């Protein structure tokens, strides 16, 4: 199996994602520079977190117009799985691959901490490594992760099973206390209509060993790689 990590000026979780994918695949992913116009042959595209272009103008807005993103959008439309994390989620949204918007956190502050989540809709490829009612934990680290969509879009996302993950308490209750950023319906991640693109604010690549404080992220990547390979 082959994977590609897209690197923009200002990406800073590209190495972490590379480590996580390398551990899951047994070999390194290709690191693809944003200015490239060709994507190598790949079975998975990963868009990492960070501050592409300093998040100047609007998070992800400039990166979404990088030459490589035209290729990424094309591959996604052809069915190649894409996982877009944090700034990657913002970029995918700005590139039109996912609906909605990510606003500034409700309390206006950057937030970095572990969050618990429940799986909102099954998608074998991305969350099939967990039990359906499992509470999973990844860290968040963002300033603009407050998911928003207009009423109609939100209804569609909910009805079509496109809401992937919701912030929850450790007991699995979806409530305001468990919402770190003000996201509508506690949404932490969503799928595109076809179900082959996952965008999420939390970072699975940050909890891939006991030394780091947990292994839910390792389960995520191990399963993703297994289901694609």
């Amino acid at each position: 199996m082959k994977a590609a990590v897209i690197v923009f000026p200002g990406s800073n979780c590209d190495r972490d994602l590379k480590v996580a994918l390398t551990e899951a695949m047994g070999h390194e992913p290709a690191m693809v520079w944003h200015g490239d116009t060709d994507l190598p042959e790949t079975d998975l595209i990963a868009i990492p977190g960070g501050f592409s272009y300093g998040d100047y103008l609007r998070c992800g807005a400039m990166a979404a117009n990088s030459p490589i993103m035209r290729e990424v959008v094309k591959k996604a439309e052809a069915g190649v799985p894409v996982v877009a994390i944090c700034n990657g989620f913002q970029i995918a949204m700005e590139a039109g691959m996912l609906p909605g918007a990510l606003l500034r956190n409700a309390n206006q502050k950057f937030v970095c901490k572990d969050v618990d989540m429940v799986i909102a809709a099954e998608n074998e490829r991305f969350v099939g490594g967990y039990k359906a009612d499992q509470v999973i934990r990844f860290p968040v680290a963002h300033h603009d992760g407050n998911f928003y969509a207009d009423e109609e879009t939100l209804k569609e996302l909910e009805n079509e099973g496109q809401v992937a993950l919701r912030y929850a308490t450790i007991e699995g209750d979806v409530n305001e206390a468990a919402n770190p950023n003000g996201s509508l319906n506690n949404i932490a991640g969503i799928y595109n209509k076809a179900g082959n693109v996952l965008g999420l604010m939390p970072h699975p690549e940050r909890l891939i060993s006991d030394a780091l404080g947990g292994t839910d992220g390792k389960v995520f990547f191990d399963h993703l790689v297994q289901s694609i390979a």
Partner: protein
Amino acid sequence: MTEITQEIVAEHGLTPDEYTRVLDILGREPNLTELGIFSVMWSEHCSYKSSKKWLKTLPTEAPWVICGPGENAGVIDIGDGQAAIFKMESHNHPSFIEPYQGAATGVGGIMRDVFTMGARPIANMNALRFGRPDHPKTRHLLSGVVSGIGGYGNCMGVPTVGGETNFHASYDGNILVNAMTVGLADADKIFYSAAAGVGNPVVYVGSKTGRDGIHGATMASAEFDNDSEEKRPTVQVGDPFTEKLLLEACLELMATDAIVAIQDMGAAGLTSSSFEMADKGGVGIELNLDLVPMREDGMTPYEIMLSESQERMLMVLKPGREEEARRIFEKWELDFSVIGKVTDTGRMILTMHGGKVADLPVAPLADAAPEYDRPWVKTEPSAVIKGADVTAPNDLGEVLLKLVGSSEIASRKWIWEQYDHMVMGDTIQRPGGDAAVVRVHGTDKGLAITTDCTPRYCYADPVMGGAQAVAEVWRNITAVGAKPLAITDCMNFGNPQRPEIMGQFVGCIEGMRNACTILDFPVISGNVSLYNETNGTGIHPTPAIGGVGLMANIDKMTTLAFKNEGDLVLLIGTQKGEMGQSLYLREMEGREEGAPPSVDLEAERKIGDYLREMIEKGVVTAAHDISDGGLAVTLAEMAMAGNIGADISLDTDLPLHAALFAEDQGCYVVTIRPDDFELVEGFALAEDIPLHNIGTIGHTDLKIDGGLTISVESLKQVHQNWMPDLMAVRVSE
């Protein structure tokens, strides 16, 4: 040409004597550009003229020290051909005037110091001091500083893994923002700043030069008054995105062998970087200022040389390597310009618009900077306050709740949740413990990092306070199981021209020297920030110490959280029950009095070495030193972190309130499995270590026999709520 009048000299912060020295060195009057250069090079901030005499007395060597003070940062050997590079630096004055940008550029500056030497930054820390929590400016400053530190570090993708924060009225008009960065490099690929090779190109890379920050170094060398707000334009504006590109571009170029020397442009910008490079290499430099990338038209040589625009570097390259280097910087969309060359004249010659605009001898200007032996007086000692001298409180539980929810002890989570403390995927111990631990990428080794200082101790007794600051750093690194290797110091004081302030400085240095010597813990880098005064009132003396330790295997790391029900709780060390300068006195009786608790450095070393030995044997399940608030607070912090209580019973001759709330030095609380007691006690007896079995972990309350019973949940509430409550009230700006 502007005539150099006495007023202009005074505006540049030079004394009449210093100006006479300028005239002697030049044999003529300087022009305005040259005067500006003298002014920043001889500012307190750049020249260390009041502090140098004393800094020289600190121990700076050990077999594992690769490079001590004098370079951009210090370097230590961490084995396997790897080196840790670190330094702490102040950005106090700018942060008071413009907290977001002041703090952000402080973080940017210290990271540049570290990657200039060839290291990838792997962790940031900070040491912050604010005024009283209820001072009208405190919330605005705290909020801005924390956002600024996070804004820069988060964008750079370097985790901010911890720090410390104090609140005290002495900082009402002068907050302290000290930032530390630790980087990782190959021990045989360290880059230094000495220019060499006559004819070699001098290259400018990074951001363009603008008019921001002109005279920042001079501002940082003067007291504040009511007009300081007007100094806002001297604060630089940070661009962490550009610095991230600069970091990646520099590391890419450093992987080749094209660089002869490299220096970041920090305080005093192009002036100090070019002079330091020339001076260290014993060479001259010629610069054509027309070639400096500029942000705006019409900049004068004076402005170009004194600008403190951020995210810039100066390099000397090997001849013929310019194009290779240029390609790398252009890939990262950064400016790259060959602006001059190395000469053998020993002079700094600057040209612009075809004419010479400055011609200065390098060595006299750099080396003949004034050095003062300022008069000083010793701080009058205060009396020791024994437990018996303090009236016993009615309710010990109430005291503990009050301390745990007090400004000094309350949880700092509100702060560190705004810092990305996990990026880079190697944060093994997150903020909130005794020291943060960052794994050395791709290995099982860990670096333990902490910053500490107890300014109220330093104020009462600078010698003891200076020793305590170093000892506490050593202790915190020991408590997580690492071997303390070296420190960086950030010396924050008031006006050194006042003998009592100079006495605080001299005293703190003496204490630090004693501790560094006995603990084998050298100073490898540092920074001095003087004139932290507003309207004649100085801050508490604050020698902030940042330390780094090494653990061979992160599997052996300890944390402070109580873990297993039934584990034994041990107290290691001797309680003396001295209550002077304790938070108990301050919070319960409103007294900031007495001598600080004494530090016995020989005992400190012995006890710490013993604890580390036990941790390495794998028998310690939790460890935490006694510090602010005393034993009761130490136990409470361990219980809160582990979400589990303990039954404690103290067998002591001290009054119970002294045993619980005196801030005894050189003591740790440790937990072990009951089966390991014999082994732990055996080593303690053999090594003559005071060890007391004081209880057992379990249940949901912290119970202290004959003293108090409090639920861990209620402790957590007051501990966690204090800062969010303080910051919840909207700051009206």
